[in-house]
């Protein structure tokens, strides 16, 4: 139903880069809301740490995207002056923090994808992409280990914690399919980078999630379940508008200012 528009190489790379950058950005923004409100001081620090890593990565992707776009923009113009339909993050990362079980499950699903994705991209023939991926994967290796470990401990913790993480998994599952979508942009850019497209990450992702869920005594939802899509094309859930309104306020309200 959508009008197909032929993309040139730069547009395609721009789309690809914002997909990477926007997911990191929006997820870190969500974690920022929890500042000082985690379930334990150690978690506050860990959350802030992950959020910081993700902001840093978002900056690298978006700054590169802005250069590819070549319109004189920068990371901040992309982060603060695009509206919902221009964001390319996964629907998963814009879902609400919910209880801490939801926050962790969202993070675990994303981290696992992120790890395999960066692993692939760090072999990219596009030197800049490879460089960003190599820098990021060191951080994300820690993220995915941390969330996997917490899912195991909570799944195999108390009855309540088990129920909470299981509910979170069931709730968020339908937003995981999109991470493996291989549309035109994905296929062409993966080919140009000499790496496997996102669809190739699905099996390793399912394997890792399945392994952690087994150890956590959790039931993994069906891989064949119906999946929501749209984030990669800028069709989001109703959450994102509110996230952006808050995040972008100052840049929008004081357009001439330097900060």
């Amino acid at each position, binding site marked *: 139903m959508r009008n197909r528009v032929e993309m040139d190489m730069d547009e395609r790379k721009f789309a690809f880069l914002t997909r990477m950058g926007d997911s990191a950005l929006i997820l870190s*923004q969500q974690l920022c809301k929890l500042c000082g409100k985690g379930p334990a001081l150690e978690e506050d620090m860990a959350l802030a740490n992950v959020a910081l890593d993700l902001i840093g990565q978002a900056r690298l992707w978006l700054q590169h995207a802005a250069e590819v776009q070549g319109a004189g923009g920068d990371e901040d113009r992309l982060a603060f002056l695009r509206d919902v339909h221009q964001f390319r993050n996964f629907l998963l990362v814009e879902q609400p923090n919910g209880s801490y079980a939801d926050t962790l499950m969202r993070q675990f699903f994303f981290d696992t994808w992120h790890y395999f994705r960066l692993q692939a991209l760090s072999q990219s023939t596009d030197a800049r992409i490879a460089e960003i991926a190599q820098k990021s994967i060191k951080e994300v290796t820690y993220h995915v280990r941390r969330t996997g470990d917490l899912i195991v401990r909570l799944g195999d913790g108390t009855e309540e914690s088990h129920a909470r993480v299981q509910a979170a998994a069931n709730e968020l599952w339908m937003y995981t399919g999109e991470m493996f979508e291989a549309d035109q942009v994905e296929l062409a850019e993966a080919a140009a980078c000499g790496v496997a497209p996102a669809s190739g990450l699905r099996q390793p992702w399912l394997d890792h999630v399945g392994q952690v869920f087994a150890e956590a005594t959790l039931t993994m939802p069906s891989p064949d379940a119906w999946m929501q899509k749209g984030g990669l094309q800028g069709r989001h859930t109703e959450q994102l508008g509110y996230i952006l309104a808050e995040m972008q306020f100052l840049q929008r309200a004081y357009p001439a200012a330097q900060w």
Partner: protein
Amino acid sequence: SPEERAFQQRIDEGVKIEAKDWMPDAYRKTLIRQISQHAHSEIVGQLPEGNWVTRAPTLKRKAILLAKIQDEAGHGLYLYSAAETLGVSRDELLAALHSGKAKYSSIFNYPTLSWADMGAIGWLVDGSAIINQIPLCRCSYGPYARAMIRVCKEESFHARQGYDIMMSLCKGTPEQKQMAQDALNRWWWPSLMMFGPSDAESVNSAQSAQWRIKLFSNDELRQKMVDQTVPQADYLGLSIPDPDLKFNEETGHYEFGEIDWSEFYEVLKGNGPCNRERLRTRVQAYDNGAWFRDALVAHADKQKQRSADAPRAA
């Protein structure tokens, strides 16, 4: 008692007291109160700044602010650990905070109303904190002194970052400059009050001084803050909201107007703009996290049980 005399002599000689050393009960209690109050302040202090992380105007500023708040959580951790060396648990200390029995710095009961407040807090609040804390790096209790050394190093970094925000705003548009001035207007007097009431009013000061856990008087420290800050405000082109402020050429100090202590006591009593909200946010975070903490304990117990049940597997 002879123990007390020996204890005081060590202090007078500048020898650090360590966790396992004998110490008077009152010394222990005073330190627990002071260190835990400081720890609580770090924890609650995350909230007013946390209020602007999601709205930071650039990604770089967002990262810097978030890193700062993370440092505060870290300071909380060191300080709770330092208090724990005195024989009290973090859970007991948090219970005292949550019940309202223990205090935290009243400065965090003021709202953060604009981005400039992130600058003003760094510049004025962290600036005051450092002035308060630097002497404590030399205090008589070893674990506390060592924690303060780490804390102060990071705080001075935070203060510089805060001043940098103010600088950007003051070099910016007229709206930004006004934002900065407004923040200074709101945070100036509360920052001066951070040093506590005038020495004449202050109880326990003499004993704490003798024990070397209070090395300067409140008024001395406050004066230091004013002397340090006024030229910085001048450099920013901002005016201190005190019509009585003037430089005394003879003393080399700034004289400043009367502090409205009634406001201070009202905030202390719970009537600050955000007392209820700050405490409630922390209590809710803690209560909502109970299932999480319980689960980690339960899992650890299970794991222990499993290794005990399967000795051959080892």
